[in-house]
């Protein structure tokens, strides 16, 4: 029998002992394989008014600019057939440039930045494109093991068009030496799949003399539910 807790090598297994929090939270019973297409049906449609102007620029909500390396993050949201996923909600969150989340549960003693909450939202456009303006998040220590540090990353939440496409992931940065020691990154068994979570440096997508440019395309599972001709 196949390992039913790892239905797809593109994704991590639920149990990855190097990431200690999986030990008590991963199911041990075989997963139930439900009929194909059960979740490849139309999903929630988020009204366009749900996102307000400026929600995709994380650098403009304080009394001055946040500290850190300003960056423009652009990319496309695609389905498994490579077609654009249009007018779909993307939510992101991240640590500030010092590696601290504006979250009451974050006890890291790095400073908060009063000009940065690290949260953004946007919709993809008719070509599946999105754009955020933010600052590069800092690395931060965590308690998973001795000298554990998370690589710099931005959390992404994608609704897609169908429940089967729902994805939460993390975007990493090229050349980060902490990737090699990160159990969350390394939970994905396939190296080529891990690399699909790394953005690319693309200077000309940034703003001359202002912001670095990074590009990150995201591919969601399922294609049947992608509406054609809209």
């Amino acid at each position, binding site marked *: 029998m196949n390992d*039913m807790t790892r*239905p797809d090598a*593109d*994704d*991590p*297994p639920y149990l990855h002992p190097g*990431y200690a*929090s999986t*030990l*008590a*939270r*991963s*199911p041990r*019973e075989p*997963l*139930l*394989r*439900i*009929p194909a297409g*059960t*979740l490849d049906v*139309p*999903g*929630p*449609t988020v*009204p366009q*008014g*749900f996102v*307000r102007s400026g929600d995709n620029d994380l650098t403009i909500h304080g009394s001055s600019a946040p500290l850190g390396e300003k960056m423009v993050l652009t990319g496309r949201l*695609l*389905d498994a*057939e*490579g077609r654009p996923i249009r007018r779909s909600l993307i*939510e992101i*969150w991240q640590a500030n440039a010092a590696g601290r*989340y*504006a*979250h009451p*549960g974050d006890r890291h003693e790095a400073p908060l930045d009063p000009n940065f909450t*690290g*949260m953004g939202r946007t919709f993809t456009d008719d070509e599946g494109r999105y754009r955020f303006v933010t600052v590069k998040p800092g690395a931060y220590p965590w308690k998973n093991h001795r000298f554990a540090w998370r690589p710099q990353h931005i*959390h992404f*939440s994608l609704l897609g068009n169908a*429940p089967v496409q*729902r*994805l*939460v*992931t*993390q975007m990493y940065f090229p050349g980060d030496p902490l990737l090699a020691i990160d159990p*969350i*990154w390394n939970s*994905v068994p396939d190296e080529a*799949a*891990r690399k*699909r*979570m790394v953005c690319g440096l693309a200077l000309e997508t940034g703003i001359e003399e202002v912001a670095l440019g990074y590009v990150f395309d*995201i*591919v*969601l*599972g399922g294609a049947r539910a992608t509406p054609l001709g809209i």
Partner: protein
Amino acid sequence: MAARRTPSQTVGPFFHEALRWKDGGNVTFAEAGRRIVLAGRVIDGAGEPVADAMIETWQLSPLGKTHAPAAGNERPHGFGRVETGEDGSFRIETSMPGGEAPCLEVALFARGLLKALRTRVYFAAEERARADPVLHAMAGSPRVRTLVAQPAGDDRYRWDVRLQGEGETVFFAV
């Protein structure tokens, strides 16, 4: 051209402010329907509450339809999103879904879950849930009862999610 999927990663412990939707636990519909409350707890394999989980629900409308888009700046019809409290508890108010075996599609996210757990909760007798083609492969298993909400009076239902161990909830391969 075929494209390879972006892998899943954990939602981590710091998602709350970013993913919290105003009234996300009060699911709206274009149609009137019987309002119900689903409450329960998320428990891990050590019996501890999962205090940093997020649950999303998706369902048919009270008349058994898929949803028309909501207007203006509202949340989408038929979709719920709540986080668990310190004791692992959650509460969703919604309308009874239509269809022969009324149920919510559930996606559960948490620190320690590298990929969302997918399951269903049925508001129907256990026998009816067993007859649902989606559960066909395990229709004879006693574990089906982990997918059935228990009536708790006054349009209230109770459903606990056990991530691991005794009474482990049935989760789906997606």
